[in-house]
């Protein structure tokens, strides 16, 4: 009985052989020609590495006789890609990414048979196919210049994963990605503003887009500051300073940063006045 099973198994193996990518291209001409312009053209037995041996499919032309990664569960189709691409620097942090947690397969974003999307506009459009709410945020008047093509989603986010929340990139080893462009906010400062260090720029800013000037989280500056500097007893929370005696009814004090200009941190003044 065991011998019969082995014979059948060997026969099934013999029935499936590698036919070569050129054979696949005789029917799938468009796909083959597009694939030939991609880096995958240098992969030996390229079609087989994702779709399996194709001799049976080449004879029957039936879709049931060939493996289609697009129809596999994401984790299974990812195993094909990761069999070659796992050990790359882009995959450090992959398992912590929202994409991995939510079963976003490699082929959701990458078209294996064609060249990669070119340019920030095409790339941004691809991200916002799923992240429609983020696209809506960029339609607000004050926004990073992403719809204009000057900035792309991958300037700030690593779609393959990152150890930082929101798959944010890091620059200069472990600085938040904001400092790649806003280097003047990096510091270190003689007098640090704690929320910048403790919780990052999103403490006060909406980084995608906002209806509020300077992409602040509230419509007036003083209301952002009052979220922390609330004049409560000092033990309530960090930054809850003693009363400042500013009369907020006066226009002079309705925008805190008119005086406290260096709000991201000051090299000179402990009250961030200069």
């Amino acid at each position, binding site marked *: 009985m065991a011998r019969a099973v082995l014979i059948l198994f060997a026969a099934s193996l013999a029935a499936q052989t590698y036919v070569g990518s050129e054979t696949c291209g005789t029917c799938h001409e468009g796909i083959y020609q597009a694939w030939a312009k991609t880096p995958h053209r240098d992969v030996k037995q390229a079609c087989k590495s994702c779709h399996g041996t194709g001799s049976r499919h080449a004879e029957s032309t039936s879709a049931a006789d060939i493996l289609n990664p697009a129809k596999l569960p994401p984790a299974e189709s990812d195993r094909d890609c990761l069999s070659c691409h796992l050990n790359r620097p882009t995959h450090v942090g992959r398992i912590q990414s929202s994409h991995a947690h939510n079963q976003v397969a490699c082929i959701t974003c990458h078209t294996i048979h064609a060249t990669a999307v070119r340019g920030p506009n095409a790339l941004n459009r691809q991200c916002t196919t799923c992240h429609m709410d983020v696209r809506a945020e960029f339609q*607000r008047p004050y926004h990073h210049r992403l719809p204009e093509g000057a900035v792309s989603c991958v300037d700030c986010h690593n779609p393959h994963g990152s150890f930082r929340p929101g798959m944010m990139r890091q620059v200069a080893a472990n600085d938040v990605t904001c400092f790649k*462009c806003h*280097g003047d906010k990096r510091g270190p400062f003689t007098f640090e503003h704690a929320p910048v260090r403790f919780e990052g720029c999103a403490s006060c800013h909406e980084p995608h887009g906002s209806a509020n000037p300077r992409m602040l989280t509230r419509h007036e500056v003083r209301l952002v500051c009052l979220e922390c500097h609330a004049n409560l007893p000092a033990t*309530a929370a960090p930054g809850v300073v003693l009363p400042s005696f500013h009369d907020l009814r006066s226009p002079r004090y309705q925008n805190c940063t008119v005086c406290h200009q260096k709000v991201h941190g000051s090299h000179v003044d402990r009250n961030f006045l200069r």
Partner: protein
Amino acid sequence: MRIFLAIFLAIPLAAQTEWLTGSLDAGYRRRTGIGGSANTYRSVVDLGTGLRLLGADFTLSDPKKRSFDRLDLQAAGWGGDPWRTLHVNARKSRLYDFTGDYRNIAYFNNLPSFADPLLSRGIVLDEQAFNVHRRLGSFELALLPGHWIVPYLAFDSDADSGAGSTTFAGEGNEFPLPVTIRDSTRNYRGGTRIELRHFHATLEQGGTTYKDDQSIYSNSGIPNYGNNSKPLPGRTLYLDSLLAGWGIRGSSIYSRGLFTASAASWLDLYGQFLYSIPENMVSHQQAATGSLANPTRLIFFTGQQYLLSAESKLPHSSGSIGAEVRPFRRLRILESWLTDRLYSGALSFAQQRLTPASLPQPGSTSTSSLLVTNRNQEETLVFLELTSKLTLHGGYRYVWGDASNSVLPASGLMPTDTGKLRRNGGLGGISFRPTHKLTIGGDAEGASSGSAYFRTSLYDYQRVRGRARYQISGSLNLSANFSLLNNANPSAGSNFEYLAHQESISLAWIPAHRFWNVEGTYTRSTLRSDISYLQPQDLQPAISSYRDNAHTASALIDLRLPSYSGLIPKFSFGGSLFVSSGSRPTTYYQPLAKLFVPLGKNLAWISDWSYYGFGESLYLYEGFHASLVTTGLRFVR
């Protein structure tokens, strides 16, 4: 822009092999007169009139593979647009891979509603305006790509220059003044990637240099009476002249190590270690003359000189490690741990002299500051593929940390602020794929905190996200998203409540053999935030409320017009709109129309019209509207 055009056109069209392919769009943009606030138009849109390189995207493939196999180039916005970009990628198989990226982004922001204490007196002035250009460059050269060892070098540059307005604050008044802004950061790094089949490591060493030379100079001869119109015991305060300069020089050394490993068929490992130690040296000088005062000490003076030198350092180390264990085919366990530790210490020494010299002199002061924070996270997730179509996941996350910030001498403030972070959270999600045309997914997260750093930090929160994608037919796709974040900090005096949710739906209908296709997206978003505070003037309790209810929509309809001589012209129209109500009601309309008329196999006439209409019901003086018409040619190879 002319250089790009000349290169493109000089290449003979009758090439034997298509070693140059791509397209180049060049034209002329005309903007109508701006209705309403020109400053707000520049702060939001900032497109002007003139000749433009609208876009270039081409590829050179050297058939003889001499210096390169392939060179890709993309450019846009050259000729005067507020954002100019250039991206180059050149590679030669298994020898080198070079990437270069350059951007010049203008940042103009002049909104009186943002910072204008003098508006009630009829003076329209944003005392925190900017008119700067940020130039960003990023270049990386990897050698021997595709080999198992890949050395690389990289250089990044970020430079900001321009002018703006700021205030000279203190001494009983704030005086708006022009400011010159100039800073730059240069990042040099190099390293090696070791890429083996079951293991990878990246080792990188780098450094940064930083310069900041902001300066204020005012000597107009006209007294500047500032924002405070009230005399101080009979004396009107004004500024005659000011010279202030910041000279900041900094540097940093950093090290980065990453690794991934397929330790076994059932085990993948990941990790990284990062360390940096930036430091800055500060030299600040300031000299002011006028009728000035120190209200606290009730001293009036006609001149002030201030000198400060300081030094700061910020050692920062981070590390993380993770593992994916696959004990069974349908079961995956993900475990990760990360830590981030930062320490910022500084010393400063300042001297001040007042004129006339007979006044009590402030003398010199020394200050030290210390900020320390560490944040740690441990997370465990389990993925179970119940069937080939259904995957569930669930897990636990614990976040903890400590932070403190102190400045000495305290000078009437708290000498040290401290905070703790302790948060326990649960995670879960589902991914359902009944057919390859339909995917439905959702995830939820909830946490409870024993302590958090700030009143607005995530405290007791719930986060839910859902998404669905349905391919109704080969040409019709429908997607929907939902997200919600509910956060509350009930601690005494805070009463912080935050609720934000968005619902989005999109449709893409691209039927074959039809002359039209349609794409559209609609998003409804709602945000509600309330927090308690005490008003500083009378310590009476108050609630700060923020509301934002917005509708955002965008659509584009493409029409194929009747063809001629085998050429198909196209007309597209659509645009986007944003309408919000709440704390800052805003409308922002951006309709557009585009026309594409091919003139031959390699040439087309392109033209578009766009309109920008912006209004805020609470700040009517900042509304604007403008139309832009662009017309040009597209060269294609």
